[in-house]
């Protein structure tokens, strides 16, 4: 059964890779602007924010939950970065460390409620989503807070050799770190088991509380990393700047094979989901097609992939 399940998702990854390649070829042929060095670099740079937030979402889903607070936490972090650097005149390095600590504390708050108090993750993070938004609005007084344009530039606007966006390297490092942690370590295997069946994990002697705490702290770390990139790109912080990304992260993770029921899916798969969604967005811009159609195409592709996956499960006799 487990082998069959793995077979389904290995096949899904293959399909996602083929889909990405097919889309790449299609957009290259259909748009004279798509297959250019500048745009290819943009394409990968545009994956970074959604990708980091999807890493945060995917691990919470694998653990059997769903962290709905990562968007407002990320936004809150951009506000804090802006306040610390612009209004309190702290050096960027100190501001980054302080905001990181606050972000991890916010993640620990989620993890405490989920792991120690056993409250449904979606309800907890629905509450903290509102809490972080409120904190961001209070601290920023509801307005956008500027960051001097030369500050934090490396995280979102610096291009190596004038061509290669630096944030892509950050993103690659985050993916490698996450893959090692969740797909090739004991901690990762425990979190998969908790997500798959918490009761079985408990009988296996796994410390569910601390593993869930760790999961949500990890999510908050990725939300913080996304905040660094966003704050750099927009040279400012705003309390709702990443709020709209939440549903996209769920979509990307599910697209990539992460189950909303927990315990199933891979980091690599989720990143393929990010890649497909981003190439659709970029390619449609290049074709000068309505953004509204982009929503329809993304939704349609998601349904087709889900239907395909369901059919494969049935063929393999997986419940």
């Amino acid at each position, binding site marked *: 059964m487990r082998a069959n399940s793995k077979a389904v998702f290995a096949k899904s990854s293959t399909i996602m890779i083929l889909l990405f390649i097919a*889309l790449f070829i299609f957009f290259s042929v259909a748009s004279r602007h798509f297959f250019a060095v500048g745009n290819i670099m943009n394409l990968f740079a545009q994956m970074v*924010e959604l990708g980091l937030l999807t890493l945060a979402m995917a691990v919470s889903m694998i653990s059997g939950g769903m962290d709905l607070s990562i968007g407002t936490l990320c936004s809150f972090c951009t506000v804090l970065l802006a306040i610390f650097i612009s209004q309190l005149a702290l050096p960027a390095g100190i501001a980054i460390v302080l905001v990181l600590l606050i972000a991890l504390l916010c993640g620990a708050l989620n993890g405490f409620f989920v792991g120690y108090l056993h409250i449904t993750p979606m309800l907890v993070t629905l509450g903290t989503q509102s809490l972080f938004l409120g904190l961001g609005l209070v601290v920023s007084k509801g307005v*956008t807070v500027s960051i001097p*344009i030369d500050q934090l530039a490396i995280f979102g606007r610096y291009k190596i050799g004038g061509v290669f966006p630096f944030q892509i390297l950050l993103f690659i490092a985050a993916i490698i770190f996450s893959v090692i942690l969740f797909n090739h370590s004991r901690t990762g295997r425990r979190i998969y088991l908790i997500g798959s069946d918490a009761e079985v994990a408990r009988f296996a002697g796994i410390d569910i509380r601390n593993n869930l705490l760790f999961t949500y702290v990890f999510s908050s770390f990725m939300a913080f990393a996304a905040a660094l990139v966003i704050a750099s790109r927009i040279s400012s912080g705003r309390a*709702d700047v990443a709020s709209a990304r939440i549903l996209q992260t769920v979509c990307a993770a599910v697209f990539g094979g992460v189950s909303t029921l927990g315990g199933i899916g891979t980091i690599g798969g989720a990143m393929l989901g990010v890649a497909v969604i981003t190439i659709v967005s970029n390619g449609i811009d290049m074709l*000068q*097609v309505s953004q509204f159609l982009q929503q329809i195409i993304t939704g349609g592709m998601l349904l087709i992939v889900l239907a395909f996956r369901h059919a494969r499960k049935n063929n393999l006799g997986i419940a």
Partner: protein
Amino acid sequence: MMKKSVALLMLLAMVFMVACSGQTTPPEPAASAAPAEPDEPAAPAEPETAPEDGKKGTIAVVCYVTSAPYFAFGEKQAIATGEALGYDVIWTGTPEVDTPGLIDIITNLIEQDVDAICLASGDTTSVVPICQEAMSKGIKVVSFDLDIAPEGRDVYAGLMDLAELGIPQVESIVDSIGTEGKYAIMTGVLTNEFLQSRIDLCLNYAKEKYPGLECVTIEAMDEDPEKAYNVTMDILNTYPDVKAIMSNVSTALGPIATAIEDAGKIGEVYACGQSSPNLAKPGMASGAVVSAILWDTAKWQSWAITIAANLIEGKDMPVGKISIDGFPDAERFTEDVFYYYETFTFTPENINNYDF
């Protein structure tokens, strides 16, 4: 199973081709719309990729909430204006407020070598870095609707100093109740300095030009329609002789009109001032509203495109009153600010011509 996978991919590819093929062909130029000839055309920078069909170039209109009727209403007119001036127009933006998404779209437009970007942004600073990148590549950046920080754009194509919208707001009171009577003001939030300055202008203008008008109270609806309704009820009870309640924001007039209707005060008290037409329509139908003001949002997009085209072509536009087809009262207010001074008064006769 491999066959099924290949079939799925082919299906998806076909869906894309069908979906995209109808959208990529530039629209036919309007036969009656002759491109405007520049007075002293400067040679525009040659883009990497020349526009198709002998067009002068491409202008992008980017809005931060394309799903909002306020912006969507202007798409067709924006494209038609571009066509008339000899440009392809890409009308795009984020369906909902999503600043990183908006920046991605602008990044993609830079990659497409557009000649100008007309931008309506949700805030003044977030888009500045990407707009600076666009300007560094020779793309003209024209902000419209709400202005952005000056360092992020070439010029602002504005309607007018929006504080001065207070003047037609007062005129809408006069249209509703005449030059004498008591009125109340409903504003957005009392802490907003911009809205406050507009109220000051309203009060001073009314005092000078219509001394028979008397403001009895200024209340805030805090961008909450339900609160606007409740506050209106309070005003009607507290000031039984009030004859008009003037909205200082575009979202309050609807609930004010509903409250007047529910209080049985149709014909005795009027809602007036600023409103989007769709919010004013029920009040116009019930008789609670006879005059409301805003601007034609579609024409504002045309204005931004026109200014962008003139910048691309290097037209001479000296500071002061300028002559631009379709914008008879236009003015280059400062080096980097243009106004066209055209507010719009909605009445029961014309309101159904607008849908936003």
